[in-house]
């Protein structure tokens, strides 16, 4: 089975001030190589969902079946965080090299992979700089490279472009779609930005307010290359916007 299956997943945080039911129950499947956007208002449990899929949180009920890796090995998961989470004491090159070194790849193969990856994300000239010397957009490129270099079977992205300005964020959306098609990896991308979701995803699920449950599932059928100005694009946008409006009113 090479698809991601999430079934009846629900998560509750136990805090000193009482239990917070943060998510679910939610169920969905993502086929191998598909691009799913989880769209939802702030605080609906999107991040919790990703963290649970990554194994960083333990669910109360339900389970996550990860897509098995090629030739049956453990699946490799990449996780791109909102703020990048690059290691500040390492150069961009060492950051990208880090997971490969951990996997025990030898030095020359490692170097080669890293250089290719730097080229792919357009950071060839910045290998020796430190993360804080880069702009926000470049940091996110580096973070993405650090994940892609592991050739992940599943790439989890938690609002990676939300803290960038509109232009940079569009630029990165374009590169992400290109990279995804080349890498043919499964992506689960979390965002509260409807346009981003429609532009990037093949499938969209909309989560309602906390505890987040799926209120709508949508398949985005748009021809490539996608244009943000085309009629069908706007139709999806308007229709999803309506779902969002009703969520706000409900709240």
């Amino acid at each position, binding site marked *: 089975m090479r698809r991601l299956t999430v079934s009846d997943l629900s998560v509750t945080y136990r805090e*000193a001030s009482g239990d917070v039911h943060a998510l679910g129950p939610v169920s969905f499947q993502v086929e191998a190589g598909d691009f799913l956007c989880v769209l939802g208002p702030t605080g609906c449990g999107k991040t919790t969902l990703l*963290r649970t899929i*990554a*194994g*960083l949180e333990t669910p109360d009920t339900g389970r996550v079946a990860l897509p098995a890796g090629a030739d049956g090995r453990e699946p490799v*998961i*990449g*996780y791109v*965080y*909102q*703020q990048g*989470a690059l*290691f*500040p004491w390492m150069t961009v090159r060492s950051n990208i090299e*880090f*997971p490969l070194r*951990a*996997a025990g790849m030898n030095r020359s193969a490692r170097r080669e992979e890293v250089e290719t990856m730097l080229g792919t994300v357009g950071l060839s000239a910045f290998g020796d700089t430190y993360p804080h010397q880069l702009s926000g957009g470049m940091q996110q490129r580096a973070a993405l490279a650090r994940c892609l270099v*592991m050739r992940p079977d599943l790439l989890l992205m938690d609002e990676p472009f939300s803290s960038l300005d509109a232009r940079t964020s569009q630029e990165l959306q374009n590169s992400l779609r290109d990279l995804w098609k080349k890498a043919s990896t499964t992506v689960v991308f979390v965002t509260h930005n409807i346009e981003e979701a429609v532009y990037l995803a093949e499938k969209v699920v909309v989560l309602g307010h906390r505890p987040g449950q799926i209120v709508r599932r949508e398949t985005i059928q748009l021809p490539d290359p996608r244009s943000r100005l085309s009629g069908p694009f706007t139709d999806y946008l308007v229709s999803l916007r309506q779902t969002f409006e009703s969520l706000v009113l409900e709240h």
Partner: protein
Amino acid sequence: MEVVGTLLDKLEFDTPRIFVRGVLEDSETGPLRDFIEKHRREVMDSGQLIVDFQDSTGIDSVPAVVLYGFFKELRRAGVRVRIENSPASVESIFESLAKFDSRGMEERRRSSFREVVEAFGSSGYEFAMMIVSLTRFLFETIGAFVQLIMHPLKIRWQMVLYYMEESGYKAIPIVAVLNWLLGVVLGYQAGYQMRVFGAETFMPALLGYSITWEIGPMLAAVLVAGRSGSAYAAEIGTMQVREEVDALRVMGFDTFSYLVTPKMMALLMVMPFLVLLANLSGIFGGLLAGTLFLGLPAETFISELGKALIPLDIIWGMLKSIVYAVIIANVGSFMGMKVRGGASAVGQATTAAVVLSIFMVILADALLSLLFVHIRPGLSM
């Protein structure tokens, strides 16, 4: 506007009276509030309010609650409030509101004791839970440590050396100076008291025992907890806030062997020598106090000290410091790992790390002293 119009039919204000006609309904709560807002100033100024229900037959609960709230506010401000000519239904609703209100007060008053007990219990429970998870943390670290010892090539020696420098080498001046000062003070004060009995030659023994058994190891541990325990908590806490710890975990790293064990290993290697240094500088301070203030020659001091101390005294302090090293490294890292949320949580974690590690160090010291009494020759009663 219509609603307000019909409501104004039901309500009429003529200082100091409000006349109510018909039935005030739930749907009219908004206009009722507007009415109160409009006349609040006048009512306050007149110092009294009479609500006349002569032409009224009843009131819904929500307007009653709103009116009651207004009455309470007025009474607090010193305005006399009276309800006149109210039909039984209106009277009973205001009565029950008043009853409910006073009962609420009673309950609140009664619960204050309960609240204290609850707060005490829940913070105690939280503390106990924290100790439980700290213990679990400790075992995981020790597990990772043992595994690493088996494969010494996997140890991040670079990090171990870095922490040895940060927590050991850089702590040398402060450990030496403070213990030296304490040695001087202790030597002088003890010797001054003993001289009254002509017993100042016993000062070196007293100083040697107190420095090597307690003060040297303890002060070194307290200083390391303050310098490095807090630094460990802040370092890991900041990584936690920036999601770097999660990033490591998702990449398949064992965060214990990556973040915690190098710190513990470094402390294990430097603490015994810091304690040795603390002992030496404390004793040197005492020697100085003896020669400068008490007229005790250095040779006498050293020979007296030699008679009193046995090698176990020095070794024991260094052994104790191994326990302290484990405590400080683990409490610091544990507090850092526990950080959730933002930058302020990192600050709280550093404080908590220092307080808890000093507490645990003293607790461990007390327990180890019990053991020491049985081990050291000449101490058991």
